[in-house]
C-alpha cells in the first residue's frame, strides 16, 4: 500500500460518500456539503496521482486549484439561489394572512 493508492482509494470513498449525500439528503446545505466532499474526493485522487515517488507533477496541483475555485463559485451560487427562494417564501408567507 503506497501513499498514492491509499489516498486514491480514500478519494474514491469520499466521492462515494458525497454522491450518496447528494442524492439522499434533502436539505440544500447538506447537499452542498456532499458535493464539496465529492470534490475533495476527486481532488484527492488527482493529487495522489501527481505523486510519483520523488517527482511531483505540478499539473494536477494547478488543476485542483482551478477546481477549488470553481467549487466555491458553484457553492456560492447555489447558496445564493437557495437564499433567494427562501426569501421569496418568507415574504409571500408573510403577505398571505393566516
Amino acid at each position, binding site marked *: 500500500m503506497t501513499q498514492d493508492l491509499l489516498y486514491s482509494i480514500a478519494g474514491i470513498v469520499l466521492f462515494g460518500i458525497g*454522491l450518496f449525500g447528494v442524492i439522499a439528503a434533502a436539505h440544500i446545505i447538506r447537499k452542498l456539503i456532499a*458535493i464539496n466532499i*465529492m470534490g475533495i*474526493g476527486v481532488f484527492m*485522487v488527482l493529487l495522489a496521482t501527481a505523486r510519483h515517488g520523488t517527482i511531483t507533477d505540478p499539473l494536477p496541483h494547478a488543476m485542483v486549484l*482551478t*477546481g477549488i475555485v470553481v467549487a466555491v463559485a458553484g457553492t456560492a451560487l447555489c447558496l445564493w439561489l437557495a437564499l*433567494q*427562494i427562501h426569501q*421569496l417564501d418568507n415574504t409571500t408567507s408573510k403577505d398571505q394572512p393566516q
Partner: protein
Amino acid sequence: MTHFSIMMLLPMTVGLPLLAAIVSVIINSHRWRTSISTMFATIQTLIVILLLLAIPDADGLYRYTLGGWGAPLGIDLVVDGLSLILLLTTTVLVLVLNLYSIWYFSDVATSTRFWPLWWLLVAGLNAAFIAADAFNIYVALEMIGLAAVALVALTGTRTALVAALRYALVGLLGSLCYLLGVVLLYRAYGTLDLAQLATQTQASPLTGSALCLISVGLVLKTALFPLHFWLPPAHANAPAPVSAALSALVVKASFYLLMRFWLDVLNPTVTGITANFLGVLGAAAILWGSFAAFRTQRLKLLIAYSTVAQLGYLFMLFPLALTGSSPTPLSNAAVTAVTYFIIAHALAKAAMFLAAGNILASCGHDKIDKLQGLVCYQPLALLTFALAGVSLIGLPPSGGFIAKWLLLNAAIENGQWWWVVVMLGGGLLAAAYIGRVINIAFSQASTEKSTGPMKTVPERHSLQVNLAMPGLALAMLAILLGFNAQWILNLLEGSIELHLANAGGVQ
C-alpha cells in the same frame, strides 16, 4: 502574415465573447451595451465564416497551440468540420437571439445581469466546441453550467429559482463525475490532450471506468431520459432567449463532447452493448418526452419536454455509428445525420421558444388550454411555432426532415429497423403535441366561456414586429435548411474520420 491572421481566429472565438462580457459588465448603459453586443455578435459570426472559408486549406482539421507549448504540456484548440458547424450554429443563433434580447430585456435591472452572463455563456460554448483538452473541457462545462444557471434564475420567480438551483446541483454533480473520469484518464495515460489520448487508449478497466464516469457526467448535462428531470423546469422557466439558447445550444455542447469521447477519444473502450444501452435510453427519451409534452399544460413546458424527446434522437447516434458490421462508412452516415439533427433542432427549438416567449408576453400566461384564437392576435408567433414544429416533427421540407431522413437511412442501412419504428413513432408523437397547440390556437376565442371570473383575460396587444421577427427568421432558416443540405454535408464529410486520422499525427 496570412498564417497569423487565420490562426488568430480560433482563440478569438473565445476571446471575443469574453471581451464582450467584460465590456457589458463595465459599461452601464443599456443602449451602449446592446449595440456593442450586436457588434460583437456580428464580428463573431464573421470570424466563424472566415474560419469556414479557411478550413478547406487546412485539410479539414485545424489545431491551434495556445502559449506555444504544444499538446501534452500546454493546451491546444482544435476545430474540424463538426465543431465548425456547431460554432456556426452557435454564432448565428447568438446573433439572432442577441437581436431578440435587445427588445426582450427592456428592464434595466435584468439587462445588467443578462448581457455579461449571456456572453460568458457564449464564451463557454465556443470554448467547449473548440476544446482539445480534457480538463479544459471541464472548465468550459463549468462556465456553461454556471452561466446557464444564472440566466435561468434571471426570471426571479420561485419556480425559476428552484429550477435553477436544481440545474446548478445537477451541473456540479455532472462536472464532478466528468472530472473524476478525466482524473482516471490522466492517471492511466498521463496526458489530457484528446488527440494523444485517442492514440493511446486501449480497452482497459480503468479506461472503461473513466468512460463510464465521463458519460454519466455528460449525459446528466445532456439530460438523457432518466436523468432529464431537471431540464423541463429549467428550460421552461427561463426568459425566452435563454430558454432558446439552453435548448438549442447548451445541451448540445455536452452532447458534442459525448460524441467526441465515444466516437473518437475513448472509442476502443466502447462496446456494442453500451452503445445500444444509450440507444435504448434515447428511444425511451423520445417516447417519454413526447408523451410528457403531450400531457403538459404549459406551452413552454411542452417545448422543454419536446427538447427531452428530441435529445433522444441524438442518442440514436451511438448504436447506429458504433454497432453494425462495418463501422467506418456507417459511422459517417450516422454522424452526419446527428449533426444535421443538432442544427435543425437548434434552429427550430430556438424559434419555438422565442414564439412561446412572445405568446407568454402578450397573453400573460402560457396555458395551452387558454390559447384559443391565438391565430388571430398572434399570427406571427403561431406561424413561427408551426414552422418550427414542422421541422421538429420531421416533415418535409425542413431541416428536421433531412435530419430524420438521414437518421432513418442510417438505421435502415444498418439493418436496425427497431430504431426506425421508434423514430417514426416519435415523429407522430411530436405531431400530436404540436398539433394540439395549433388546434387550440385555431379555435375561436371562446366568448361563451366568459361566465366565470375572467381572471386571466390576456392583454391582447400585438407585440412589436421586432419581437416576432427573430423567431420567424430562425423558423424560416430551419425550413430552408431542408433545401440546402448539401454544403453543410460537404463540410461535415469526413470530418470525424479526419479527426480520427489526424489524432495520431499530432504529438
